[in-house]
């Protein structure tokens, strides 16, 4: 084939294009793959050696009668598993969230709530009696006063930490709100299983928590696009 000057220029352009694509494929693409690495997950199980007992009402010696209540401990079997610190940039875009902690049957439902900072929690009263939700925790102190059934009051949680919630009228009512500065946490299910999704590959410290008791931080490595397994035993 005769290489005319015109064909030579075309060939040169073609070679330049191929070289550019090759360079991109060989050198640029792998770096891009690192930045956009497929996130992984952590899953496992939290076993409780001892089931935390529900808080009993104080002996109601001064009452003229008694109310028989059925205590439900299922909520107390729920644990929270979370990363001690979040991957850099993992929490750049946060949508304001809402959550609900109901007051029902002289209990807070759920007994444990795990939320991200900026979340607003609504505290509806579903009982036919007054409740008075309050907390004196350093993370967030608040007192919602007394309000009747059908009413709800919101509280926004802006700082990470653990908030203990009580009722000023019924001393046996209590709950926990765990506020995280990142989204890498999970509540266990009825059988103690948990799964934290969308975790960027890397090595992190993982902690399990139940009713004020927490495990030692445990190093966990998340493979690219893979799943790390980790089990805990608490109490």
């Amino acid at each position, binding site marked *: 084939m005769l290489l005319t000057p015109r064909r030579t220029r075309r060939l040169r352009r073609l070679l330049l294009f191929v070289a550019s694509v090759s360079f991109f494929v060989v050198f640029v693409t792998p770096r891009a793959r690192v930045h956009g690495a497929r996130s992984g997950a952590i899953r496992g199980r939290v076993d409780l050696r001892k089931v935390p007992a529900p808080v009993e009402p104080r002996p109601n010696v*001064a009452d003229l*009668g008694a109310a028989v209540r059925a205590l439900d401990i299922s909520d107390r079997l729920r644990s929270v598993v979370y990363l001690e610190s979040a991957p850099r940039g993992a929490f750049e875009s946060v949508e304001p969230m809402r959550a609900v902690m109901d007051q029902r049957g002289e209990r807070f439902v759920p007994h444990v709530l795990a939320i991200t900072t900026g979340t607003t929690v609504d505290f509806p009263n579903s009982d036919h009696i007054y409740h008075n939700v309050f907390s*004196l925790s350093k993370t967030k102190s608040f007192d919602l006063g007394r309000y009747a059934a059908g009413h709800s009051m919101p509280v926004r949680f802006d700082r990470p930490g653990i908030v203990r919630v*009580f009722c000023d009228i019924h001393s046996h009512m209590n709950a926990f709100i765990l506020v995280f500065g990142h989204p890498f946490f999970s509540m266990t299910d009825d059988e103690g299983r948990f799964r934290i999704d969308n975790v960027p590959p890397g090595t992190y410290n993982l902690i399990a928590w139940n009713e004020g008791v927490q495990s030692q931080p445990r190093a966990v490595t998340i493979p690219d696009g893979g799943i790390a397994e980790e089990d805990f035993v608490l109490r």
Partner: protein
Amino acid sequence: MTYGLRLAALIAVVALLGTATARAQVLPSEPVALAGGRITIGGDVSASIGADDAGFFNYTDYDHAALRVLTVDLTTSITPNPHIAVLGEIRDELALLSLPGDENRNTVRVYALYVRIRPWIDRAIDIQAGRVPPTFGSFARRVYANDNPLIGYPLAYQYLTSLRPDALPWNADELLRMRGRGWLSSYSIGNQEAEAGVPLVSAFRWDTGVQLHAASAIVDGTVAVTTGTVSNPRLTDDNSAPQVAARVSAHPIPGLVLGVSGARGPFVSSTAARGAVGDGHDRSFTQTAWGGDVEYSRGYYLLRAETIWSQWKIPALGAPVVDRPLTAMSTYVEGRYKLRPGLYVAGRFDHLGFSDVVGSDGPQTWDAPVTRVEVGAGYSLQRNLLLKFSCQRNTRDGGRVTNSTLAAAQLVYWF
């Protein structure tokens, strides 16, 4: 107990609670549960330190002033099955800051001990027998320091009138000589030793008997038959007939409680009645009491008001005779407002008045009327550790001290 031991006890309590304050949540905050929750133990500890109450305005008996006392309560509930519970309370009161050499009778006593029977699990009907909670009124069942927004108590439940169940005045003059001296009164009939008188309704002792309580969504009703009277609850009967007391309360909307109470029973002991008019008349000398109370709460405020009217019949003996029943009426209004989480302010206005009797110098109230205004504040150092301050102004139309301004602080811990 010696002065040194009392002081050591005070320092120990302050140190314990102070340390706990510094290390929040160190002390247990929930009742102790044993045997899978069938046994629960709770407790209240309160230490009150206040000015010297030379006028005996706040004394609950001759030895203990409400503003200077360490009170330790242990309560327990044993519930072998849903039908039966045994409830008890042991209380120890120790006078604080009394001077070296002062007599201080340390009183550890069984405040409550009774069995509660619920025949039908799904019906709110309870039978209680033993040393049972007060049926009458509203305050006596929330006398615990963490339920009382202030440090002082309502006059009707605490202030010692000059009347005694075991001693009687010979005539109106003898009665009038004891005006304003209820903390240590003495009469010539019956027990002639000087002893403390009784309040309109005692909040510091519980009566012994049987109580029936039934509740619906809106109305509660209680009726009780007990050995003593509302002003003189007793472990054993000291006359020939029991007291009957009843209370009905309604809560038509959340936050509103309306209550009425009534009680009637022989007040004067058989011994005193026999000394005055011979055998067989002790049923005639009764205490009759009526009460009305209201409570309303909403948001950050709580309002309460209660009125109690009491009438005692005592024998008419020498001239000038006490020719009519002795009556007293007390009314208080109290309120509490939460300023911020853990901090509240409170106040109470309280008045106690008495009917007239005619003595040699003409008509006069049979005891000295008292008015008390108390204001205070409370701050929760932690959920179950409360620090209270209050200041009260007492005025009395008679007695050795006719007015007194008292300040006090109180630390309360409960679990």
